[in-house]
């Protein structure tokens, strides 16, 4: 479904600032796979997601979606089939547009955007119903500008929007990291239920070891641009956060930063 083959990316090659962000990375994901990605700072996690999204073009290797090489497609072209939620809760929504207008933008993913009315009565009803699942009361605030919502509300809305029109692949890059624990919990719960309900093929980066083990059916650990550990569902269910930390401990130069939470 999503296959990443021998993908490499080096920033500022041949200079003193050279950074090998991805080194010969291979990753094969089956339909409906939910892979959590962990790794120290600078391991290349975001770069990996960005090469799938087309935000960064790899130097070498192939990114294929549904068996077709998408390496040449621009970011907005790939976005017809790739949904994203960013770390920054402000990044995934348009603040000066209303909740219903934002949803209508998400609704048109991959479709023609012509001169039909953006928000109709029928759509409004669909949007309100979808918003009810968030249990934040947003269905009653359809005409509120998104910029007036809290970070947690915006991130929950971003998640709903990213998954609304059933993308083939969902990319989540530390999308709960900027939220307080309660909101992070909510967004994690929403993530699990929407991914399960829609059977979305998902890549989720997290610094939270507990979350990385609890969520998804597969876990990969990255270090210095390589995937150094690939854990399947069965082994993952038996692992503890301590086991993961031990894996980190084996690495030369890996610093477990204070974002890494163990609770």
């Amino acid at each position, binding site marked *: 479904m999503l296959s990443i083959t021998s993908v490499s990316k080096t920033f500022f090659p041949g200079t003193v600032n050279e950074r090998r962000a991805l080194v010969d990375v291979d990753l094969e994901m089956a339909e409906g796979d939910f892979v959590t990605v962990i790794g120290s700072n600078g391991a290349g996690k975001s770069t990996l997601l960005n090469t799938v999204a087309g935000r960064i073009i790899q130097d070498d290797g192939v990114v294929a979606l549904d068996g077709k090489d998408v390496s040449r497609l621009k970011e*907005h072209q790939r976005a017809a089939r790739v949904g994203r939620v960013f770390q920054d809760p402000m990044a995934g929504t348009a603040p000066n547009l209303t909740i219903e*207008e934002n949803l209508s933008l998400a609704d048109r993913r991959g479709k023609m955007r012509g*001169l039909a009315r953006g928000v109709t009565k029928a759509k409004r009803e669909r949007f309100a119903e979808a918003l009810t699942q968030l249990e934040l009361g947003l269905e009653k605030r359809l005409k509120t500008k998104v910029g007036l919502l809290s970070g947690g509300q915006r991130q929950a809305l971003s998640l709903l929007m990213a998954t609304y029109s059933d993308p083939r692949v969902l990319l989540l890059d530390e999308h709960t990291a900027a939220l307080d624990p309660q909101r992070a919990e909510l967004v994690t719960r929403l993530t699990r239920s929407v991914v399960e309900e829609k059977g979305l093929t998902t890549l989720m980066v997290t610094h939270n070891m507990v979350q990385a083990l609890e969520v998804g059916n597969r876990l990969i650990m990255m270090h210095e641009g390589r995937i150094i550990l690939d854990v399947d569902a069965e082994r993952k269910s038996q692992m503890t956060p301590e086991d993961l930390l031990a894996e980190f401990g084996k690495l030369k130069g890996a610093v477990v930063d204070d974002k890494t939470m163990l609770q």
Partner: protein
Amino acid sequence: MITALELGLIYAIMALGVYLTFRILNFPDLTVDGSFTSGAATAAILITNGVNPFLATAAAFVVGCLAGLITGLLHTKGNINGLLAGILTMIGLYSINLRIMGGANVPLLGQDTMISALRSVAGVGWTSVLVLAAVAVIFKLVMDWYLHTDNGLALQATGDNEQMIRSFAVSTDRQKITGLMLSNGLVGISGAVVAQHQGFADIGMGIGLILVGLASVIVGQAIFGTRTVFQATLAVVLGAVIYRLAIQLALNVGLNPNDMKLMSAVLVVAALLLPQWKASPSSPAVARGAQR
């Protein structure tokens, strides 16, 4: 007074164009100085060659769109800074406008124009003001409608959060080009009607026009608010009229017409700075909002 109102309403169409780029797309587009004259030149030369003035004005829209297209391509495909892209098109248009007119000036005296048609029905007075107000309101309503279509919402989002709307499969390049074309098309129409109103097209008529547009948008929105698109576009139209009245007032009290450009510049600076002073230092968001 009547003339100032009439001109204000005609310039309102230009101000709506500036609103589209400056506020919606968050793109300070200097093309307008050139595209305004292009619209005027195109319409004037067509009218003197016997073309129906309504068709001539429609042609001015097309020419304005082309000017916007060039700026849009320079910016998005050529990766040229937006301000510079606008300046490049504007300067280039100066020569093109001279070519279109075949000189620095095209008189329209004695020609059948949209304004002469208006005069034959409504004369000069409140009726003619009303007709032009209706025209400005129609443009405003069409823009309100467009901004709420799927395409218009994508345009708004492009100015609001580019990263987000790209992640929903919108080509922000294409949206920017669309916005710049529509904006300069409106500016071209406005230039065409102004030429017909004053009875000539002139190579210098667009100089400093961006300031008139910005002043109309900023002053209008400061007074009448921007809560919804409907309100914001109304504010732009009213802002253009107020600006024209203010200029008229300044002239009436004996200010030198040559000082008008300086006046416009000071007015825009004041409108940009005042909201920042009003805001307390603890709310930097307000100051940032004023710059948008």
